[in-house]
């Protein structure tokens, strides 16, 4: 059963200009029609490079940014169209863990007060002692001792701070946790500690995760299904294993081929698909397929004019490319592939 269902979600930010009167002169199409389902108790990974809209999508689910269009269903309620007051109450079902734990924890609040805040806002627990028990539970779940309660965020290391961020999300017993780059600010030896913790919590509590990150290896490791975003849209969605063994979209192929693997034997044998140029501006996305300006397999006419729909190509595998089958069969030759050696 799906816990989260996103239908044609759009977030367009207006670009304002003018001295006396603000005129809207255009839009940044940060998220431009994304649909996806997340099964309860599973992890959905969202990858893409900076500016692809993955963070905005995560925030839009919780309405931390205004939603332009589309629907966000959690537990049978469409969050996108809830009145503000009800939305505030609904946020208890879905919590967020941010990238920078120091930036997202108020430096003047001690850990007890940070973790209590959510409980108080949502009126959870009868009285202080019961709330304190919830807080201690959450703290214990993330592996921090009780004495942490009287301390302040700056007294902790990066990994511990991220544990506090996770505890803050956990304490409200949400169904869904949206993790936005939860480990990218941490040293590699610490990353594994936090990733293992997230997996353990999922097993124990049946949590559902939306895992947003730029690191494909991290996302693949923790996710059941992975969606790849490019310029505000999903270009491919696949099971975690299929994404590496059988990527269908040219962008996914390039992404997979670009991630360095810590093994010289693998590195020497790999074929790298080098993309030309940079990401186009999301304020002025290319016509047709948004990837056509950088695509090594681009075909005349159709790719430039017709926007490909996300269509199924296998069990749990969707791709938005006109020529996915031809590319897989090797009927279209790519440009700009660097071979091994």
């Amino acid at each position, binding site marked *: 059963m799906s816990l989260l269902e996103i239908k044609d979600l759009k977030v367009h930010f207006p670009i304002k200009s003018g001295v006396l009167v603000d005129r809207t002169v255009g839009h940044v199409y940060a998220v431009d029609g994304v649909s996806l389902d997340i099964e309860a108790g599973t992890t959905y990974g969202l990858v893409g490079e900076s500016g692809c809209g993955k963070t905005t999508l995560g925030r839009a689910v919780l309405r931390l940014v205004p939603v332009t269009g589309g629907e966000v269903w959690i537990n049978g309620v469409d969050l996108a169209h809830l009145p503000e007051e009800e939305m505030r109450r609904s946020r208890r079902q879905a919590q967020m863990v941010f990238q920078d734990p120091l930036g997202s924890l108020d430096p003047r609040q001690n850990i007890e007060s940070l973790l209590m805040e959510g409980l108080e806002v949502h009126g959870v627990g009868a009285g202080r002692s019961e709330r304190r028990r919830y807080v201690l539970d959450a703290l214990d779940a993330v592996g921090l001792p009780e004495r942490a309660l009287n301390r302040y965020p700056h007294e902790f290391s990066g990994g511990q701070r991220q544990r506090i961020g996770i505890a803050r999300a956990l304490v409200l017993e949400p169904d869904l946790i949206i993790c936005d780059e939860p480990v990218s600010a941490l040293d590699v030896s610490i990353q*594994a500690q936090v990733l293992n913790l997230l997996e353990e919590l999922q097993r124990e509590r049946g949590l559902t995760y939306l895992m947003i990150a730029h690191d494909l290896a991290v996302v693949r490791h923790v996710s059941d299904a992975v969606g790849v975003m490019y310029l505000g849209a999903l270009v491919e969605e696949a099971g975690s294993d299929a994404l590496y063994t059988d990527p269908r979209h040219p962008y996914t192929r390039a992404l997979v081929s670009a991630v360095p693997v*810590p093994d010289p034997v693998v590195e020497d044998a790999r074929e790298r698909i*080098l993309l030309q140029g940079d990401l186009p501006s999301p304020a002025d996305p290319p016509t047709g397929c948004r990837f056509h300006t950088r695509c090594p397999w681009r075909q005349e006419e159709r790719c430039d004019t017709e926007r490909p729909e996300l269509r199924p190509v296998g069990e749990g595998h969707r791709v938005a490319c006109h020529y996915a089958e031809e590319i897989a069969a090797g009927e279209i030759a790519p440009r700009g592939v660097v071979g091994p050696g």
Partner: protein
Amino acid sequence: MPARPLLAVHDLAVTFTQRRRRDVRAVDGISFSLGEGSVVGLVGESGCGKSVTSLALMGLLPPRGVQVSGRALFRPGGGDAEVDLLSLPTRRMRDLRGRELAMVFQDPLSSLNPVVPIGRQVTEILVRHRGLKGAAARSAAAELLERVGIPDPRRRLSEYPHELSGGMRQRALIAMAVACRPRLMIADEPTTALDVTIQAQILELLKELVTEEGTALLMITHDLGVVAGLCDEINVLYAGRVVEGAPRHDLFRAPTHPYTSGLLRSIPRLDAPRDEPLTPIRGTVNDAIEWADGCAFAPRCDNYAEDCLGGPPDMREERTGHRFRCVHPVHGRAPGVPEPTATQGGDR
């Protein structure tokens, strides 16, 4: 490889001193060498001393509050004469920097002057070190930008850093670094701020420059994946010392220091099956003890035994070129490496 390396660092130590505060020993006796035209990696997590090492070699540490000791013997022009980069007078050092030594930093936006067009920043180097003037300098600058893959280079010359994308800025910085065909380029996390597809472009460019121009590259990074494909030789740093150093195939096939093998076990690999568990290293870098008392990694180490605390462990060499600083090394294979027969890929 020639008998004498291009750069030989012996026992480099850097201590930051502050009044009324405890001294901080950021680099605690690092030794490594780098042959002409070779690529050597310094890998480690934050606080291991990798960036301070690069700044010390370039003479870019602040003049006050820093004690530098050791030697860094460099052969200018690849000739027989040696100079010690750590004790060279400021003027000679300034002359070497830009011409023989070049550096690329992590964040191109803060290493480029925001109020000067790219073109002028590149020509400045050509004017200062190669004595070019006017139109000649300008077209040489355009050629350089083209060389590093910046499209429409003539137009780019008049643009300011903020008008370029992150990847383009890093290319511009690399163009400045290679402007005088340096013998040695030090790149400190050159791709960390970039997206992975752009990172692939920049790494490809660096490889190309090394092969075609014969520039030696000292690559400083936290990313074991990056060094695996790029470096001939890799040094792993922990708490200001090299704990393991080996040719890349050797290092990844048979990581010997528990820290190296721990790192490899804790990173999710893109090509590994999903259910392969990660084994984190416990604790944090802050748990390190002083090298004088024993192995700094001991408090986090799975192979810890009491004799780990009997003073600083010596650097040992078991196979040729594979050195490690550990009393109880790991003698296993790297995670994900199945059988020794399957991995007989020779070194480059």
